[in-house]
């Protein structure tokens, strides 16, 4: 079982809190979220990515287990 990030770009307000997980999130030229890595989040990154997802004030990010 793995965990993947999904982003609802339409909800993104460009708050950029997610960039605390700098390996996984950035903001594009229009200030909206970009998910930097496809595929499963590595176990070692999961805690920080989970924080980034939960701290999004727009609730635009999700972690999905599959």
């Amino acid at each position: 079982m793995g965990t993947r990030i999904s982003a609802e770009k339409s909800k993104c307000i460009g708050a950029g809190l997610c960039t605390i997980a700098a390996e996984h999130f950035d903001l594009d030229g229009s200030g909206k979220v970009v998910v930097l890595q496809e595929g499963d989040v590595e176990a070692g990154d999961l805690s920080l990515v989970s924080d980034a997802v939960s701290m999004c004030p727009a609730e635009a990010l999700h972690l999905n287990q599959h």
Partner: protein
Amino acid sequence: MTTDTLPSIDWMSEDFQTDVARACEAIAPYQTGSGLVRSSRGIEIVNYDLALKIVRDPKFSLAMPARLRTIGITDGAAAHSFMNFLFSREGADHLRARRACTPWFTASGAEKLRQQTREWVEQWMDENRSNYGDLDFLAKVSNRLPSTLFCLMIGAPFSDAEFIQHMSEELMLLTAPPMPGNAERIEDAAAKTRAYLLDQAEKRRQDPGDDLLSHMVRVRDTGEIDDDDVLAVVFNALVGSTDTTSSQICLNLEALAANPDQWELLKKEPSLVSNAVMELVRYNPGAWSVQRSPYEPMEFEGLYITPEDTLFPCVFAGNNDASVYPDPRKLDITRELGSSPLNFGTGRHGCLGRMITLMEQEEVLLAAAKKWKSFSVVDSNFSGKMFSTTPTSFRLSVVPESE
């Protein structure tokens, strides 16, 4: 390049102490090129892209030591509280505290407060109908709302709202131009606020509720966070709770009063309110600038800067940067903003109360659009220009909709 080679502005001149419109006109020539100017207070960042870049950059702090030093605060409750601030923290210390409080500051957290906010604003507007000829909007609504909402958020009695409002105003002097006496006022307010919040935390521990402070205390009692973490959040939230939102609420109305076509459009189409608020905060920001300092000496845009340097990303300038927002001094509540206005920052230290203040501003406009036919500004005064403004008076003359 050194700061001496930068063009200079006088932030205390009339150009920058009148209103946002005049300040934008004065700064416009400097927004192309490097976007850097110098002033007696530090290095001014005057275009959108550079301001956004520095606000996001983890190599820069919010310059808390520099702010405290400028005002003459070196120790005591104020120094401790502001260095413990959520926005003064980095890394694990920052994450631990911010993670603990997050559910209250998300979009859905703000939505839970919307109905109560709406009821209060409509009730206060109705209660003051007899004063509509000369309505002290600052006292009756715009100071009252965020401070009362803060009481709700921490489970405190609503009768504490005036104390919250006063403390917020006093503590926000840290972001104001340094004046004699400010250090003593900030120290007094910090000591009182700290004592108040610790007392409220103990009350919530004895009699917990479904509020932010009860939640933080519960988490503290598990050992996951400590008292300093609790204070880092609630002290930060209190400081930013009232003064900033109150100022923006007043400025929003001032802009709509000066642009009656936009007011009429909002009345006709209240569904535009979310976009209207974002356009209004862009057009007439309460916070004219924020502060940053580098953690380490570094080269920045060709300048060598050190932790002794204070940089001022100018929100008013970036928000009115014509390369990002065409015809920026035109208020257009239907404007497709694209890039987010700079008011709330971005990155790890983005405004904690962003979703809540936006909700409050929306509800004030919705209530006004519903209950007022038209209005004009009788008196309007804000202190703190070029820093974070504080409304010192804001009175309206209102023509109500017929009941």
